[in-house]
């Protein structure tokens, strides 16, 4: 079955908004409503030691992946946060950033265990 035919079907690069998985996004919006206010200014990334030293997708990028429903990307990165809270100090929109990470972790765990969100 697993024969290599030398060609395959390329997954296109578009964000498919009709199909994306909004479960985690809705969950976060419900429990950390301040995340709705993110304007993607990047101050959190700029100040985040983890984002400066590793390929950690900080709060800003996580929000973009969240809105696109790319939960796997989030799951790959989320454990890198050290909960230092610096991002929260600089956020001009008052996003409760550490709560975002906590609730995201919780949501991802539930999704992995096929629990209802």
């Amino acid at each position, binding site marked *: 079955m697993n024969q290599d035919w030398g060609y395959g079907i390329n997954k296109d690069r578009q964000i498919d908004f009709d199909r994306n998985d909004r479960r985690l996004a809705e969950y976060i919006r419900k429990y950390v409503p301040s995340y709705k206010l993110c304007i993607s200014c990047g101050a959190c990334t*700029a100040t985040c030691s983890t984002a400066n030293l590793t390929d950690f997708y900080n709060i800003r990028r996580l929000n973009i992946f969240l809105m696109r429903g790319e939960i796997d990307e989030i799951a790959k990165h989320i454990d890198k946060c050290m909960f230092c809270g610096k991002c929260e100090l600089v956020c001009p929109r008052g996003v409760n950033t550490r709560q975002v990470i906590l609730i995201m972790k919780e949501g991802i765990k539930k999704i992995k265990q096929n629990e209802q969100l």
Partner: protein
Amino acid sequence: MKKHVFIIGGGVAGAEAASQLVKMGFDVTLAEKETQIGGKLNQWDRLFPSKRKAAEVLDFINKNLVDSKARVLFNTEISKISKQNGGYKIYAGIEECTADAILISTGYDVFNARIKEEYGYGIYENVITSVDLEEMFRNGNKIFNSNKEEPKRIGFVHCVGSRDEKVGNHYCSQVCCVTAVKQAMEVKEILPRAEVYCFYMDLRMFGLQFEDLYRESQEKWGVNFIRGRVSEAAENIDGTILIKVEDTLAGRPLKMKVDLLVLMVGFVPSAGTTEIGKMLNLDLTPENFLKPADEHLDTSSTNLKGVFIAGTCKSPKTIADTFADARAATLKIKEFLEGSEK
């Protein structure tokens, strides 16, 4: 007998309203706490959008005011205002005046950049504000850092004290984006070899000619724009400033050493605006500016009969909008004093 209008604050708004009201046939007294007319304009060198000298606009309002022969009280603040016979009694400095109507044009203050401690204003010598930069322009276009050297790289930080939950100011101050673009071009004019960077969250070029200024700054002057909010600034041993930002379009954190960092400070209601508002118990907007009676239909009246407002005591504004607003207020005052207003 001529009706008397008392104006508090002699910036663009108060001075223009005074000369217009005299033309309409009213007696006018203008109280200004400083020794000169013009308010903030006295601190600016050249103005957007046309880069004309602020002094030209100042000459215009000063000449009109002198020609109008409106009574001007300098060095005068208001200690008390009380109601009297359907009008008001105003204690202005050592004088007591009665007035049939009051116009408040006490303007704005710039945001105190020291509050945003993470940018280091007042701590690092090479962090200055847009107001300080105007002063350098006025003093013969000499731009130096603290070592008296010409800066090779200059950064402008947008939205300092505006659009920021952390300092309690949610609103946009409207003019600082275009001011940054104007100042960036002026810096390039004086120091053609310097690199200039603007760090912004959104560029708000709302005026008809503002987008052209933005284009000109890129096309003619090579000003660079990086989309990201600066999170903090730190001082290097040599006095240069290290800033941290995310280049959000590249999706990567970025650090940069600049020789001079300019903070684009926003608008807050002036101390005088807050004080007079309190004195008269005027309604305030959620941003603590003075609130107009109606946001569309009557932006010159207040919750108090006979008390009117004009200029930046109501909201951030350009000079052109301040002029227009002052003239609108004079019409409303005329309507009120001539009894056509119900």
